[in-house]
């Protein structure tokens, strides 16, 4: 098939994206130029007043820091947990490898809401962790593990792990068992081999996974909302509040576009970093 005819294959997906993504996004951009009247009703106009107000608001700045901090800590936690799992899956000769891979990405198959309730059962005041710690006499009063930043970070890390494991596996191209054997035969201990061979060759994969995890964390809504118990404010939760509770569409739109731009910048930076590491 010629290239000219080949591109028709993209038509159905193109139309679909146009209808459910491009059109609403255009609406988002349109709303960003509207204003909110004194009654709270939207005033159709073309101005940058809402944008200016949102950007000047110190709360926007706080939300941005919160989002970045939450995403960074969740990403690092998830990366620390995903890297060994991905390394294991990449290398194992076990006949259960396929099954293990499915288990690793299983959380993707479960609704975010269900996962959150799972975490409440584990991390809550009378949850698994607290009751175990108390029965061993490690603590007297239950630790506050949910409805705060700790809970959100843990929950978020867990929810992005499957994606990061897949990204790591996809990025492990250069990693070759023989290289580690070569390192050992040249006198490097297993630890030195990890530091000098395995880790440097994993860097492109780690950058890729970290970029993906960060973007997913930035746009996560369910986990901060439910595990945060109303105490954790990030960009995603604020957009939802403005759009639904306050029905302030212009502010919600400006915040959404602001988040989008932030994410695009981060993605570009992560791509550059990954390319630099691959050389």
């Amino acid at each position, binding site marked *: 098939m010629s290239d000219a005819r080949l591109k028709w294959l993209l038509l159905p997906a193109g139309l679909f994206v146009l209808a459910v993504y491009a059109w609403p996004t255009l609406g988002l951009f349109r709303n960003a130029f509207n204003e909110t009247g004194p009654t709270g009703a939207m005033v159709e106009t073309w101005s940058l007043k809402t944008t200016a107000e949102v950007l000047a608001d110190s709360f926007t700045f706080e939300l941005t820091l919160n989002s970045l901090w939450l995403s960074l800590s969740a990403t690092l936690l998830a990366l620390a947990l995903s890297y060994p799992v991905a390394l294991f899956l990449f290398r194992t000769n076990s006949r259960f490898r396929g099954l293990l891979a499915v288990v690793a990405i299983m959380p993707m198959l479960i609704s975010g809401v269900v996962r959150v309730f799972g975490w409440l059962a584990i991390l809550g005041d009378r949850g698994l962790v607290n009751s175990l710690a108390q029965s061993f006499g490690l603590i007297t009063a239950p630790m506050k593990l949910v409805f705060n930043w700790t809970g959100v970070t843990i929950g978020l890390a867990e929810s992005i792990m499957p994606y990061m494991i897949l990204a790591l596996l996809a990025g492990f191209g250069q990693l070759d068992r023989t*290289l580690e054997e070569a390192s*050992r035969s040249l006198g490097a201990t297993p630890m030195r081999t990890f530091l000098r061979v395995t880790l440097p060759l994993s860097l492109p994969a780690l950058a890729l996974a970290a970029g993906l995890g960060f973007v997913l964390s930035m746009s996560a809504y369910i986990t901060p909302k439910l595990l945060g118990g109303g105490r954790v404010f990030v960009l995603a939760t604020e957009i939802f509040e403005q759009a639904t509770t306050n029905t302030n569409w212009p502010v919600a739109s400006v915040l959404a576009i602001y988040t989008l731009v932030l994410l695009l910048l981060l993605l570009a930076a992560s791509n550059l970093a990954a390319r630099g590491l691959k050389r």
Partner: protein
Amino acid sequence: MSYLELSGLQKRYRDAVAVDDVSLSVEKGEAVALLGPSGCGKTTTLRMLAGLVDPDRGAIRLDGAEVTRLPAHKRNMGYVFQSYALFPHLSVARNVGFGLEERRVAKAEIARRVVEALAMVRLSGLDQRRPRELSGGQQQRVALARSLVIRPSVLLLDESLSNLDAKLRDTMRHEIRSIQRSLGITTLFVTHDQVEALTMCDRIAVMHRGRIAQIGSPEDIYERPATRFVAEFVGRANALPATRDAEGRVVLWGERLPVAAPAGGEFDLFVRPQRIRILPISEPVADGMARVTGKVLRSVFVGDHVEVLVEGAAGQIQVELQSGTALPQEGAEVALVWRARDTLPFPRETA
């Protein structure tokens, strides 16, 4: 006791025996080839030597000390991998210096020895390149330099030439052999290529199904194969079904040969194609020569030699003549003559 001693090595995997029972003594400075088809256990044996695979049974002794359970990084074995296994993120110089850095050799000394090692494999001036900027032959040289620079107790080469094209392989064969000789380094080659084994080594251990079928000099292996497998695997040979007469002599194509038949059941005669001469049918033959007659089926000119296929009473015989000699006419009745001692009888395999 020899410098390197393998005794009773065995390695089983889940559903297969990779190495069944391998014992081998290697003298200091000697080059020994482990030759065999794929799956014969030669690479597993090499990996056990390097400490990359733990043997289930048996022992490895190096210079009098047992190293069977010593981890790879404490063994000081230079391993050249089939894929070269150069570190893609390090320059050629850092690759070669890797083992010295791990041994905490002083920086200046590392630099000096890296330059020396690269000069030895004729790669001077390429030290700042990345491995992927090098050709296959150059990568092979870097891998060799990287293994030699640590002054290993034993150099282990795993099918190291099989990824090179034929011409380069020839060059590298001679280069590696001359480096090995000038350094006097004890070397084990794993190869499935008999030319490699025959030309690069002092001794050859032919491996078959996880065991050593025969060990000896290249000449021993070629001229006096101990088993049918060795005769078939090393060099080419006609396998000719033969019978014995009442006096216990070999009968082939109805002719009695001055060769003693082996005891036992059915057997085949192995005769190398280049050991057979083609003579006019009327020509008398001397004592101690085997002679059968047949008809020339076809002659094929292959450049440095001519392959002649002769059909006799009960089968065909391949003959290899030097080119430049007169080609036998197709369809001509001829006598095939060879020395009795070039006839190797082996029992027929009852596979």
